[in-house]
């Protein structure tokens, strides 16, 4: 069996790792970098560029360069998150056939799974070139708080990229696995994962070769990108105050600003103050204008403090779910590039009352964990068992528009739970079971995963029939739901085939289309 690669498909950077000679290694790309920007562009002359090549030309080709597309994957076009991205991104985001957001660059339109597939394909190629052998099996990570649609879209992306996705793994869980492997002690750790676009927190218990996730929480739209945007906004305002010019509608200027802001943010992790120099950023009647501003670490910290504090709200919710206090946590592990920021480290340390662990590389640990899980699933070499949880509650919509959770979030999978419901009208002969996922008590605020009808309920007064609804999640995360009339034992069930934003046929077709980017096999 060929080797399994682990891919951390990040919002800003991606990373691939594999077990080689019994040890996980992070595979450098041909440029020698261990992480690759999650960017895709079509150049002026029609060439497809991925990774560093795409990033390098982003400024001069802003409208044709896609970044942070992970923030759109699996969402509805009408969602708040997509609306915010439309406002902020230099590339165009349009409504797709399935009400999904699609990205238009250089007269072509791409679905989000397709973009993810292009990035995954690149990672696959990096691994194949390094290993000198074909790779087909992969474990891909997603933010713990991704819902079923987002996960399925990521799986579809893998398929389009010619990968057999063995498992979709939660990012903080992967990090915990990488941290916990080979540690024989029993301890509870908190994995604080602040990446480019998402935030996750997981409380994990280690011991006896088992990694048990106790609880997980997060926000799929909160990350380093938001910090960059705060700084961009600050720079825009400063520049407008100085020069009286609004750069908000100049795509190229915005891209340059974004780039400079990201760099300034990183610089400020090491320095107290930094300069942002962007010559010829604008032109008006009086000639060219240059942006030349200095930014203090303190200024940046003030700008973003509330964003970072927002993460701590998720942390305390997560601790509550795990029924633990901060004092029960033995170690805090920081994951994600954004945790390099001193302010983040300071607030986390203050919250937990202990200094975070510094043994793991925040950019690489997730990919490492993913390849470990790949090895755990396919070989006997790695003796560790991961007990992961379902991050979002699963349940059904009730007749009054409420949501009744049957499998609460943070239940260890596989899991089966059942509950008895009844009818709401006299002589009601059928009930519609609407399977939903989410945390709101209102059904409408949660995601609909599927629905089916249980009929042939014998005539009875309302409230009398008893309908047992059973939810089942298997180890691969596949949800099936059955409803049974306890009096007649008649039963209906569905497998909730998690639907991405693309149909199976579309995924197949895109897979064929993208097969041309496969590396030629060496003879």
């Amino acid at each position, binding site marked *: 069996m060929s080797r399994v690669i682990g891919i951390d498909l990040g919002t800003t950077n991606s990373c691939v790792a594999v077990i080689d000679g019994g040890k996980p290694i992070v595979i450098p790309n041909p440029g020698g970098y261990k992480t690759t920007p999650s960017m895709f562009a079509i150049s002026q002359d029609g060439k497809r560029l991925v990774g560093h090549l795409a990033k390098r030309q982003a400024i001069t080709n802003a409208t044709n360069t896609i970044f942070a597309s992970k923030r759109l994957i699996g969402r509805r076009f009408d969602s708040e998150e997509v609306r915010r991205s439309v406002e902020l991104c230099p590339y165009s985001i349009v409504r797709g056939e399935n009400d999904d957001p699609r990205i238009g660059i250089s007269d072509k339109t791409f679905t989000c799974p397709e973009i993810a597939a292009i990035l995954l394909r690149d990672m696959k190629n990096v691994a194949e070139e390094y290993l000198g052998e074909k790779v087909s099996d992969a474990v891909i990570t997603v933010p713990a708080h991704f819902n079923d649609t987002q996960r399925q879209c990521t799986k579809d992306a893998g398929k389009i990229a010619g990968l057999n996705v063995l498992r979709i793994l939660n990012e903080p869980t992967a990090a915990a696995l990488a941290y916990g492997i080979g540690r024989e002690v029993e301890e509870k750790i908190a994995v604080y994962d602040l990446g480019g676009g998402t935030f996750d927190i997981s409380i994990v218990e280690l011991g006896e070769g088992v990694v048990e996730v106790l609880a997980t929480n997060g926000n799929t739209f909160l990350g380093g990108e938001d910090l960059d945007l705060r700084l961009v906004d600050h720079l825009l305002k400063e520049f407008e105050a100085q020069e009286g010019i609004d750069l908000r509608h100049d795509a190229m200027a915005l891209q340059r600003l974004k780039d400079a802001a990201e760099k300034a943010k990183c610089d400020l992790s090491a320095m107290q103050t930094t300069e942002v120099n962007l010559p010829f950023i604008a032109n008006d009647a009086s000639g060219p204008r240059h942006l030349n501003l200095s930014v203090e670490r303190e200024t940046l910290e003030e700008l973003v403090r509330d964003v970072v504090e927002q993460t701590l709200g998720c942390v305390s919710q997560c601790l509550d779910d795990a029924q633990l206090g901060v004092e029960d946590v033995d170690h805090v592990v920081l994951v994600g590039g954004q945790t390099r920021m001193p302010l983040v480290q300071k607030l986390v340390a203050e919250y937990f009352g202990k200094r975070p662990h510094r043994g793991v590389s925040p950019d690489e640990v997730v990919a490492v964990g993913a390849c470990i899980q790949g090895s755990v699933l396919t070989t006997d070499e790695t003796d560790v*068992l991961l007990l992961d949880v379902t991050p979002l509650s699963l349940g059904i919509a009730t007749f009054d528009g409420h949501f009744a959770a049957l499998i609460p979030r943070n239940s260890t999978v*596989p899991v089966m739970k059942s509950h008895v419901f009844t009818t709401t009208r006299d002589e009601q002969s059928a009930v519609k079971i609407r399977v939903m996922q989410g945390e709101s008590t209102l059904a409408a605020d949660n995601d609909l995963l599927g629905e089916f009808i249980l009929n042939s309920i014998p005539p009875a007064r309302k409230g009398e029939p008893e309908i047992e609804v059973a939810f089942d999640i298997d180890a691969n995360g596949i949800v099936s739901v059955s409803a049974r009339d306890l009096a007649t034992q008649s039963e209906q069930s569905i497998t909730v085939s998690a639907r991405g934003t693309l149909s199976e046929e579309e995924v197949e077709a895109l897979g064929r289309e993208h097969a041309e980017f496969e590396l030629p096999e060496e003879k």
Partner: protein
Amino acid sequence: MPQLVPGWEEKASVLSTEEGFLLSRIDGETSWAGLRAVSGVASERVDECLERWLQDGAVTLAALGRPVRDDPAGGGIDPSLDLSAEFQERILAFERGLDRPYHVLLGVSQDADAREVKRAYFRLSKDFHPDRYFGRELGHFGPRLDRIFKKIALAYELLQDPSTRAELARSLAGQPRGASNAGSSEKRRWLERMRRQFQIPEEILAERKFRARQLCESALVAGHQKRWKEAAACIRLAIAFDPWTEAYKESFGDIQVEVNRQRAEELLSEADGAWDARSRSEALALYDEVLHYRPADAEAHGRAAQLALELEDFERALEYAERACELSPESASHHFTRGRVLRRRGMRKKAIEAFDAARRLDPEDPRAQEEIRKLRQRSERTPGGNS
């Protein structure tokens, strides 16, 4: 509709409580589905029993045919699968016992602390979690592993939570064995309601009670003559016919202990000294149950410790052995067993202490002395080694 064939008693003689209960519900008027609904027995078990009785000729089907089975999986050991035959056996055995009380399922005592419960759960997870067999050809064992893991995860969840745990303990104390499947209270309430709907007419009720009394008497006689299996079968039937008399349930527990003990010893003698893992693990499971009823039985703990030791389940062996020594500190053989377990776990110093205790209690037996000599010898060979 299933109905009883005259002379069924001989054909379905050895019955468990639930089988007995089910049998008592066969009146020629309740349909197969109805039996599934009212018997309080898992649907699969109802199907299984009825199928068997049909084959044995104890039951016939009138008019309505049998319903479609819930679980067509069936099947036993399949050497073509990607699982060792021993493990397939273990899966089947464990699954048969899935309805045991949760702490028995996890293999911990009823008062085990949170850490012990967690460790037992982790240990069983490493054996039964479907991820351990990812991508393998598992046949019908795939769904079985899935079911087993879900059940142990549920057991862990309920035992970890002090409030649900207290409730479980209460319900266990108030109910006979077999009815401990405290899964959902809704289900139980529903069953109660169903039972009320299927009300039993007075004269049938009186006859049932009479039958139960007779059976109980036979049970007492059989028990007196140490024919424990027969006694258990009778008392089970008595409970089935008359589930309202608590005294039957009480004597059932006592008899069950003896049956298990007897069966375990039989299994062991059948094994004929050969290393037969299957009968040993079955015997151990039986002792497990004996201990459930007799938590202060030192001899049973000692036997269980020996069995676990032979099965190389050292952690359990140590638990049993320690308990045995605690309960009967004057018994040399318990200390000796404990010493052997400790030695296998590599805890040399403690092992020597245990053997030393055994030697002091029974100076006649040279085995403890021999073990100590060997252990000391080894420690000389590896200087600096500790514990």
